[in-house]
C-alpha cells in the first residue's frame, strides 16, 4: 500500500475536540495490530464516499454454536486485505457489567492475540463486543475465553444475551435482585442462547425499578421491572432535611406526582399510597427520605421491539405483580409457555410483540393460560366490534 493510502485526513479531524476519540482508539490498537491500519483506510474511504464498505453477513461461528459471531467481510478485500474478514465476537458480559482489573486484562490479552484489539464496552444488547477477527481465529479465541470462564452471547434468531441494571449491588431502589435473575436466566437457557431455535430474536432485560436503566420497556421481548406493593417508606427527618436545604417539596415533589397522591402541609408529607402508580419521581428527588415499600417484586411486560418489521412497540403489562421470591420460578414457567406459543404460531422474523398484535392479546392470554386483567390495558376497548364467543361468556 502506498503511503498516501495510509493517510486519513478526514478521520484525523475526529481526533480533535474534548470528547474521547474512537479514531485515536483505533490508532492505539494499530500500534500492535496491522488490522487497524486497513480498518482506518476503509473507514476513511467510507467518509470520502459517504457509503459503507462492509458486506452482508455470512455464516461463521465456533463449533457447535449457531450464534455469538457476526460474520463481516470487506467489499474491498484487495485494497484492505487485513480486514477482508472482520468478524465480531459477542462475549456474554458478567451481570451488571462488573469486572476486576484482572478480568479486564485477561479479556485484553485474548483479544490482542486473536483479534484486532478493538472492543465495544459494551454492545447495545449488553455483550462485550470483540470487534474484528479472521475466521481461523474464532475457535482459538473461543477456547481461551472458555478457559478463562467466559462464553459467547447470542445473535440471530436466538435468545439474545440477557442484561440487567446494577440492581441491589449498588442501588437502593432495586425491588428484586436483577443480577441474580439475569444470571440465572442466562445459565438456564444456554442452549437457546447459543443455538438459535426461534422465529426471530428474543430479548430479556431486567430493571430493578420503574426508572428502567436498561430500557427494557423499549426493547425487550420480556421486560422485568421491579416494583412494590404497599406504602412508600418514609423518613420524616430526612424529608425535613430536604426542605431545610431548599427543596420546594410541594412544587417539585407533590405537584409533579402523576396522580397527585401526595400533599405536603405544615412539614408533613402525606401519601395516598392506593393512588400511587410507582412512577419513582418523588423517590428520585428525595432518595434519603423516600424508599420503595417493603413488599417487593416485579411487573412482567411483553413485546417491546424496534421498528423492523411491522413497527416499533413498547412492552405491555403481562403480569402486574410477582413477589420477588417467586420471580425466578414464575418467569421460567411464563417463558416456557410464551416460547411454545411463538414457536407454533410465529412467522419468520416475527417478534413476540408482533405476533400478539396479529392474533390479539386475548388469544395470546388463552394460549399461555393467563386471565385478562385491567392492569394490562390503558383502557378497555372503545369499539363494539366484539368477537363474542358462542361457547362461553368471555370470562
Amino acid at each position, binding site marked *: 500500500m502506498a503511503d498516501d493510502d495510509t493517510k486519513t485526513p478526514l478521520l484525523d479531524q*475526529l481526533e480533535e*475536540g474534548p*470528547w*474521547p*476519540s474512537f479514531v485515536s*482508539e*483505533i490508532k492505539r490498537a494499530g*500500534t*500492535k495490530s496491522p488490522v487497524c491500519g486497513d480498518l482506518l483506510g476503509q*473507514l476513511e474511504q467510507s*467518509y470520502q*464516499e459517504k*457509503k459503507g*464498505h*462492509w458486506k452482508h*453477513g455470512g455464516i461463521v461461528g465456533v463449533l457447535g454454536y449457531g450464534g455469538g459471531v457476526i460474520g463481516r467481510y470487506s467489499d474491498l478485500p484487495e485494497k484492505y486485505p487485513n480486514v477482508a474478514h*472482520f468478524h465480531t465476537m459477542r462475549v456474554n458480559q*458478567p*451481570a*451488571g457489567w*462488573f469486572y*476486576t482489573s484482572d478480568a*479486564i*486484562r485477561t*479479556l*485484553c*490479552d485474548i483479544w*490482542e492475540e486473536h483479534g484486532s*484489539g*478493538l*472492543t*465495544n*464496552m459494551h*454492545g447495545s444488547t449488553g455483550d462485550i463486543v470483540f*470487534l474484528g477477527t479472521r475466521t481461523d481465529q474464532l475457535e482459538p479465541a473461543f*477456547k481461551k475465553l*472458555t478457559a478463562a*470462564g467466559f*462464553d459467547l452471547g447470542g445473535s440471530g434468531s436466538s435468545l439474545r444475551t440477557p*442484561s440487567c441494571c*446494577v440492581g441491589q449491588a*449498588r442501588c*437502593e431502589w432495586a425491588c428484586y435482585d436483577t443480577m441474580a435473575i439475569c*444470571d440465572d436466566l442466562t445459565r438456564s437457557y*444456554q442452549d437457546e442462547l447459543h443455538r438459535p431455535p426461534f422465529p426471530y430474536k428474543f430479548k430479556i432485560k431486567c430493571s430493578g425499578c420503574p*426508572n*428502567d436503566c*436498561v430500557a427494557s420497556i*423499549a426493547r425487550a421481548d420480556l421486560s422485568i*421491572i421491579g416494583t412494590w406493593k404497599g406504602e412508600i417508606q418514609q423518613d420524616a427527618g430526612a424529608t425535613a432535611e430536604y426542605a431545610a436545604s431548599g427543596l420546594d417539596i410541594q412544587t417539585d415533589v407533590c405537584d409533579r*406526582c402523576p396522580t397527585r397522591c401526595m400533599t405536603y402541609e405544615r412539614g408533613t408529607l402525606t401519601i395516598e399510597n392506593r393512588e400511587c402508580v410507582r*412512577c*419513582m*419521581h418523588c423517590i*428520585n428527588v428525595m432518595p*434519603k427520605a423516600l424508599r420503595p415499600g417493603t413488599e417487593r417484586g416485579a411487573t412482567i411486560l411483553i413485546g417491546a421491539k*424496534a421498528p*423492523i418489521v411491522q*413497527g*416499533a412497540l413498547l412492552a405491555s403489562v403481562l403480569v402486574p405483580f410477582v413477589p420477588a421470591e417467586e420471580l425466578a420460578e414464575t418467569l421460567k414457567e411464563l417463558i416456557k409457555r410464551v416460547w411454545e406459543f411463538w414457536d407454533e404460531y410465529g412467522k419468520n422474523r416475527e417478534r413476540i410483540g408482533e405476533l400478539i398484535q396479529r392474533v390479539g392479546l386475548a388469544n395470546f392470554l388463552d394460549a399461555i393460560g393467563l386471565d385478562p386483567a385491567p392492569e394490562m390495558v390503558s383502557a378497555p376497548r372503545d369499539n363494539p366490534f366484539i368477537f363474542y364467543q358462542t361457547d362461553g361468556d368471555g370470562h
Partner: protein
Amino acid sequence: MATATAKRITDIGPPHYEKFLHPVVKKNYGTWRYHENIQPGVLCHVAESGDRIYTVRAGSPRLLSVQTLRQFAELADRFADGYLRFTSRNNVEFLLSDREKIAPLIGALAGLGFPVGGTNNAISNIVHTQGWVHCHSAATDASGIVKAVMDVLYDRFTHENLPAKLRIALACCLNMCGAVHCSDIAILGVHRRAPKVNHETLPRTCEVPTLIASCPTGAIRPATVAGKASVEVVADQCMFCGNCYTVCPSMPLNDPENDGLSIWVGGKVSNARSEPRFSKLAIPFIPNNPPRWPEVVEAVVNIVDVYARHARKFERMGEWIDRIGWPRFFELTGIPFTRYHLDDFKHAGLSYARSTHIRL
C-alpha cells in the same frame, strides 16, 4: 484422531458476577439505603451498615482499544481496589471505598482524556450503533457523529445544569440496535431510495418467497428477469426500512447522495412522572456530511439549547413539549413542519389531533 484433545468447554455462561464485586458492594448487597450526589459524575451510596461506596463515572467512546482498557484496569488498581464496571450507556465506573481517592482518580482520568460526568441532569453518553466502522446496512456512521456531537455538548456532560435528564441515542439505520426510539433526542440514519435489485446474484443468494414476505408494505413482487427468477420493487410502496436487504444481500439500499440522518425528540424510557413513550419526528432529513456532520450537530445543539431555556425543572423533553404543544416546539426551534411529520403507516390516525385544544 491420533492425539487425544482436551474436553471442549461450551455453554458455561458468563463468569458469575459475585467474584467481580468490590468487598464493600458484596458486604452491603441488597441493603443500600440512599445515595447522595457529590459532584457531577460522582455518587455516594450509603448502606444500612453505614458503609459508603463512591462511584466515579467517566465517558468513553464505547469503541475502546485493549490498550485503553488496560489503562482503566490500572486506574482501578490504583484508586478503586481493582474494581470497575460499565454502565448501560457505555460509561466506565470506578467504585471507591476511600473518598480521598476521588480527586486523584478524576485527575488521572482527565490526564488520559476521559471526562467525568453523565449523572443526574447532565447529558449522559450517547448510546450508539456501529455505523461504517462495522455494519453493512448503515445509512451513516455512528461513532463519528457521536464524537462531533459530544465535543460540542461536552460541558453538558460534565455539568448537571439541564432541567432534567436528557438522553441522546444514535442508530445508523431503522434496525435501531439499541433503544433510540425512546430517547429525548434520537439521531437516526435513514435510506431514501428503494433497493437496487442485483438480478445477477439474487437467484443464487436469496430465497424469493422469503424475500417477498420480508416487505412490510408488500412492495416486492416476483419477476422474471433475463429468464431468471428475481423480484421487482414497487418504488412508490417502499418506505426504505431495509428489511429486504437484511434477508437478501442482493437488495442494497446504500446511496451516498440520498442516505442521511433524521432527528426525533421527546421519547423516554423511565416511568418517572409520565409514561414511557416513543420519540417523534422533528427533522425528516439531513444529508451525510462527514467527518463532523456540522448540520446534525447544529440541529441537536439547537434542540438542547431551546429545551434548556424553556423547560421547567424536572420536565423531560417530551414532558416539556406536552406542556407547550408541538406547534410551539416547532416555532421555538425554528424547525419547519412538513408533510413527512404526518404519519401514514399503520395506526397513523392515532396521531391526528382530534380536539379543539389548540394554543392559538
